[in-house]
């Protein structure tokens, strides 16, 4: 194709690409035009609403509630410091591996496990601080605590379940298979309902578990069944030759599991495990219907305030944005971990 010297090859190519991408055939042109009109119209009215019609006071004036829930004002710094730590940890994890000294890199998994106990220490008790009762926890901070707690409980449990489901002991296999399949068949809201309303009936008299703990327990047991299946998928993908190699090296079954099978299975299962983590965050929103004031719950109480009548769209869009951001953050963290595992895997 001869190119005229005046319009450089680059702009020419761009034009060609636009033509190929948008107006290749008459049908394509029609689709493009219709979609463009619809998108343009939608975007225009959305922006018009966002900047001119929407009243963002319901978001701006209650930002503290969305983030920290009903935490007493003089205690908010504790929530901030935890969120700050969590944010820093995310940033550090997302940094390119080359920029971090190796010890920090090694410490990262440990830090991720420790961030939950640190949060509990900061919020609940310890460090010589006055304890904040769990009924004051709320907002985004509670959603994140619930999510982290769920993941930290479900992942090990899911791995154990996956191993048990592949065990050579028939009884163990049947029990775990039954547990996994029944749990995966149940609607989450029913499981949470069970956790909030019925767990107390199965405890000895006089025993109580606080609500946040009951929520994490029920979410954890639920998500573990899904993670178990992901891990099992990863285990199945391991070539048999690997196991034979491990055996010929004289590794014991336990060593084979820990040193050979699990690392590979987890690496394979990582994308689906990450999806489960994102799903856990989304699941916490159901607790709004069971009396917890996590992000959605606190938003609903704000919407119940007569000062903000009818401001649903603003609140829901703000919530969608928050959830979306956290989900995206979780996904990119998972990608980062995946990439670094692949790098180390090639050693």
């Amino acid at each position: 194709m001869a190119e005229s010297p005046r319009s450089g090859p680059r702009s020419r190519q761009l034009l060609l690409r636009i033509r190929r991408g948008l107006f290749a055939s008459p049908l394509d042109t029609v689709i493009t035009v219709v979609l463009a009109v619809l998108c343009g119209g939608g975007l225009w009215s959305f922006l018009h609403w966002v900047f001119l019609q929407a009243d963002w006071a319901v978001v701006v004036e209650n930002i503290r509630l969305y983030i920290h829930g009903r935490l007493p004002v003089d205690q908010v710094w504790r929530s901030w410091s935890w969120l700050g730590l969590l944010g820093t940890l995310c940033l550090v994890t997302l940094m390119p591996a080359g920029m971090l000294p190796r010890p920090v890199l090694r410490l990262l998994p440990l830090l991720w496990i420790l961030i939950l106990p640190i949060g509990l220490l900061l919020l609940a008790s310890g460090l010589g601080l006055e304890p904040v009762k769990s009924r004051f926890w709320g907002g985004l901070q509670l959603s994140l605590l619930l999510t982290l707690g769920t993941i930290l409980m479900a992942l090990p449990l899911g791995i154990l379940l996956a191993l048990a489901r592949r065990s050579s002991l028939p009884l163990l296999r049947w029990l775990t298979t039954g547990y996994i399949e029944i749990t995966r068949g149940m609607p989450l809201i029913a499981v949470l309902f069970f956790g909030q309303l019925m767990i107390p009936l199965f405890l000895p008299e006089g025993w109580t578990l606080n609500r946040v703990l009951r929520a994490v327990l029920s979410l954890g047991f639920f998500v573990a069944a899904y993670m178990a299946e992901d891990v099992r998928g990863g285990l199945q993908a391991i070539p048999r030759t690997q196991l034979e190699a491990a055996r010929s090296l004289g590794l014991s079954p336990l060593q084979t599991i820990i040193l050979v099978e699990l690392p590979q299975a987890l690496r394979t299962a990582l994308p689906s495990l990450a999806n489960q983590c994102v799903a856990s965050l989304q699941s916490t929103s159901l607790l709004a219907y069971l009396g917890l004031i996590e992000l959605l719950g606190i938003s609903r109480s704000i919407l119940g305030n007569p000062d903000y009548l009818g401001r649903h769209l603003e609140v829901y869009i703000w919530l969608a944005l928050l959830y979306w951001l956290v989900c995206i953050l979780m996904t990119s963290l998972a990608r980062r971990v995946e990439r670094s595992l692949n790098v180390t895997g090639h050693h």
Partner: protein
Amino acid sequence: MSLEPLAPGRLSGRRKRLLLILLQVAIGLLVLGVIALLLTNLQVNLLRRGLGLSFDWLGEPARFPLSRGLLPYRTEDSYAWAFVVGLVNSLQVVVVGLVLATILGVVGGAANFSSNWLLRQLASLYVAVARNVPPLLHLLFWYFVVFLGLPAARSGVGAVAGLLRLPVSVEFVALLIGLTVYTGAYISEVVRGGINSVPRGQWEAARSLGFGEGRTLRLIILPQALRAILPGLNSQYINLAKNSTLAIAVGYSDLFSIVNTTFNQTGRSIEAFALLVLVFVAVDLLISGVMNILNRLVLRHG
């Protein structure tokens, strides 16, 4: 994992087998023990409240009113019938939702392979937004913002329902759309993955035969992708069935909301919950069964 002796001579085969049997007995006893303890606690707790476990109440009149649905229901009917009504209401949403979400998902998934840039971008925008927002928020948005907030949307539903002479309520439509949009995003990812699994050569071959984009997709690519798509669809369908219990947020009388009301009125939480679990396991098995048959058909003819 296999169990052949690893370090020969340390354990004889028979002793090992005995050990394994003993181990299983121990596990069985432990599990039984834990279950027995929990049940004892339950018994003690229920007795303290003067309740035993029983299903006699299922025959008693439910006496709570329900919105009109597919099945006739009067308040003199039994709890058992109310559950059936709820189940049918749930199935109504699930079945229609399955169809709509599949259509949306296939269109969304296929749009990723369109030569039209704008269409591709829109498809990935849809997936990125819909998947990363909790399903509950989807429902609240559709019900409270769209259908309750816009009188036009509401009267539109009323007009369509009147035209079709169907008991279609705003709550049903909001639940349906919310579930469809959320599940559709996941299905479109499944479809995209399935289409990706078809070798690129097939596209080129079809093009060289003079097939247009749409026909290539419909006649050549999708049938081959189906094999990779069906297993993923199965779990999305089950998820949709389970998410239909979020009806509780929009005032639609599905099975779970009726079970929930029953908890309250009879105090029979354990029994009602057990029924709910049974029904859901049955629905999941049904979906998986149908999908397995489909899968086999595809494998045979595909």
